[in-house]
């Protein structure tokens, strides 16, 4: 299993407390290929696309429009 995780240092939370999941490009339970863009985070006028860390079944833990911070695990890939 691999976590779909927002990098710890992506933004300064003292200035911008949180971002949101702007979009999931696959549905929960979908099979996703490794390195495919699966989600999009929006924070401070930045679109941050997250690639699948591995191939497998996507399990979404933070839905679209959910609030996120650096280090948040927004989903996982089950092998």
């Amino acid at each position, binding site marked *: 299993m691999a976590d779909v995780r927002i990098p710890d240092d992506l933004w300064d939370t003292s200035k911008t407390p949180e971002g949101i999941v702007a979009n999931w490009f696959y549905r929960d339970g979908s099979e996703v290929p490794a390195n495919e863009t699966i989600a999009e985070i929006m924070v*401070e006028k930045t679109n941050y696309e997250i690639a699948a860390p591995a191939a497998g079944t996507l399990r979404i833990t933070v839905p679209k429009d959910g609030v996120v911070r650096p280090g948040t695990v927004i989903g996982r890939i089950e092998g």
Partner: protein
Amino acid sequence: MHGGGDDMRIVIAPDVRAVDAAMTEQQSLVERAFAEPGAAALFIWRAEQALLVTRQDARLPAFERAARVLEAEGWPVLVRTSGGGAFPVHPGTVQFAAAARLPAAGRSIDAIYDALGAPLIEALASFGVAAGLGEVAGAFCRGRHDIVAGGRKLGGLAQHWRSTNDGAARIFAGASVLAEEAAQNLTDVVNRFYTLAGGDFRCAAGTVTSLRRELGAAAPTGDLAAALLQRAATVFRSHIPLAA
């Protein structure tokens, strides 16, 4: 946003061109920079008037209709990859597009904003305008790293990142700086787009300025956007800027 000093490719397009052609060239340069680890590219360009919107804007319920109406009114709508909101460009604005594929660890969007913003602030200062990065309540495409002068928005910055599984990030940072006054009120154009597209956002009048307005009577005659483009290019060359 830059790994060294000699591998930064700067391309300047001083002539006003069709916005779709400019964005195609921009994308080509971006992809080339992404293909070479450590390489970076900066594209500086001007275009005919258009409204650049985000992918989130393009998902508004009546986006297609809004785009058709605005294009018929002389404002073609193009979707960009960076975040924020709708931003109108015209021959009096100058666009900056920087791209690099860099190690992701420890890199932040705040640092990238500072790296792109500092040379732009310096270029504006060379005209005698004191600007800084900040936020203007009620402005279109508002963010904390907009270029602000006299309490009004003079330019905007936005980014697009894509993570990869090799520990790198493909980072794009864009900026638009308003050099000349537009023939049409830009906030009206943005508000018309969101009204037609079914979006809730509305920007406030009096929140936007331009380099010419800030200079007032001291503004030189001639094409101020062209002058800003060349001045900024000189600053970027001397800085080897995007080192974040």
